[in-house]
């Protein structure tokens, strides 16, 4: 293959418009041919500029306000970065203090019901505290994670592979992968000393999310790296299609 360069197909490969078999041919060649890989990089630089030539259109004025109102709340601040509060709200009396203060004015029946409720809640808290202690065993908290990065053709894709400390089993979660038609599937590859073993096939939903439960005959921790390719439906014995995600342990 390396003597039969795929230069005629590289521009279309950069545009991601090749048929599956041609994309597979180009991907295989690129892995072994630095001159064609350089050619690909030059066309990818063309592709990244093409969106700038979309005809100008103005979004409706309400769109920004609509977007900002939909932002899910997230708490990513570290303690050092978190901005100071703009003001201090007046101290509020806890609900139980208000209730206790009102108790003398309530009927004896209410007092009895409250006492029973307090006893039930105390017992419940004790049970939950013991349950948390059981779950807090050190062996349940150790996981190994491997970040998978999107390939140059899908830089927005990402994934993470989480496995237990011994590597007996793991889960792959991906995001940002395009939806494939029914003739194709994503396939995970477990790579060790250059040999690739299938880790399973999976698809993604309309938002690009997907997950895969992984079991392996040998511990996952013994693999060097992991990759995801696009394969014909049902999967392939070895990777043949375009690589979309990759990461090293």
């Amino acid at each position: 293959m390396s003597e039969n360069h795929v230069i005629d197909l590289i521009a279309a490969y950069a545009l991601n418009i090749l048929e599956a078999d041609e994309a597979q041919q180009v991907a295989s060649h690129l892995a072994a041919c630095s001159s064609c890989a350089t050619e690909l990089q030059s066309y990818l630089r063309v592709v990244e500029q093409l969106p700038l030539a979309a005809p100008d259109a103005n979004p409706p004025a309400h769109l920004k306000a609509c977007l900002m109102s939909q932002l899910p709340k997230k708490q990513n601040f570290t303690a050092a970065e978190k901005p100071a509060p703009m003001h201090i709200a007046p101290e509020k009396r806890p609900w139980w203090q208000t209730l206790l203060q009102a108790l003398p004015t309530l009927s004896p029946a209410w007092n009895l019901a409250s006492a029973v409720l307090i006893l039930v809640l105390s017992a419940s808290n004790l049970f939950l505290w013991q349950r948390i202690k059981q779950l807090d065993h050190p062996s349940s908290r150790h996981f190994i994670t491997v970040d998978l990065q999107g390939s140059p053709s899908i830089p927005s894709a990402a994934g993470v592979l989480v496995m237990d400390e011994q590597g007996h089993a793991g889960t792959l979660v991906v995001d940002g992968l395009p939806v494939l038609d029914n003739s194709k599937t994503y396939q995970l590859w477990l790579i060790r000393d250059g040999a690739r073993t299938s880790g399973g096939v999976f698809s993604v939903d309309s938002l690009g999310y997907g997950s895969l439960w992984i079991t392996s005959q040998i511990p996952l921790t013994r693999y060097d790296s992991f990759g995801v390719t696009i394969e014909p439906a049902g999967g392939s014995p070895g990777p043949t299609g375009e690589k979309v995600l990759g990461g090293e342990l």
Partner: protein
Amino acid sequence: MNYSTYDDYSLIHLVALAEEKALGALYDRYGKLVYSIALNSVGDAGLAEEITQDVFLRIWEKASTYQPEHGKVLTWITSITRHRAIDMLRRRSARPETVQPGWAVEEEGADDPPEMAAPENVEDLVDLAQQQQRVRKALAQLPQDQQKALAMAFFQGYSHSELALALGEPLGTVKTRIRLGMQKLRALLEIEA
């Protein structure tokens, strides 16, 4: 806090720290471009709005995963937009036949850069305007048939065989058209092979 003078990377960093106004500043800077790409792809204003919101919500949620070594913020955003638009077309199993994607071409000699989103935006926006002018002038030098094939491939994800079917042209002709168009663009944009 006025974030309009912050560079793209600083804004992404602030978005990763859950600073909503930083996302608003990114929208002010690139919302029009994102919407333009989406509308050119799907040909429907409602869908283009949906894609635009989806892209910025994704930036909001994924800003912490952005890696500068993989490309500029602008490239990241436009790549997300293109893939979202093509995904939406594929999910609907139909491309808008009545609306053909096109290019905003500029003839050689045009000196005015494209309109900018806000006067206070600085370096990144000037760069964006210059890049836009450059690529639009380059596209203007391609023959119409190459422009059309490239627009359908880029904005709507047409494969070679789908293009041949849609354009009523032999597969080999379409392949050559795409290849020659990209070759010429690469030369005009002075990108070294």
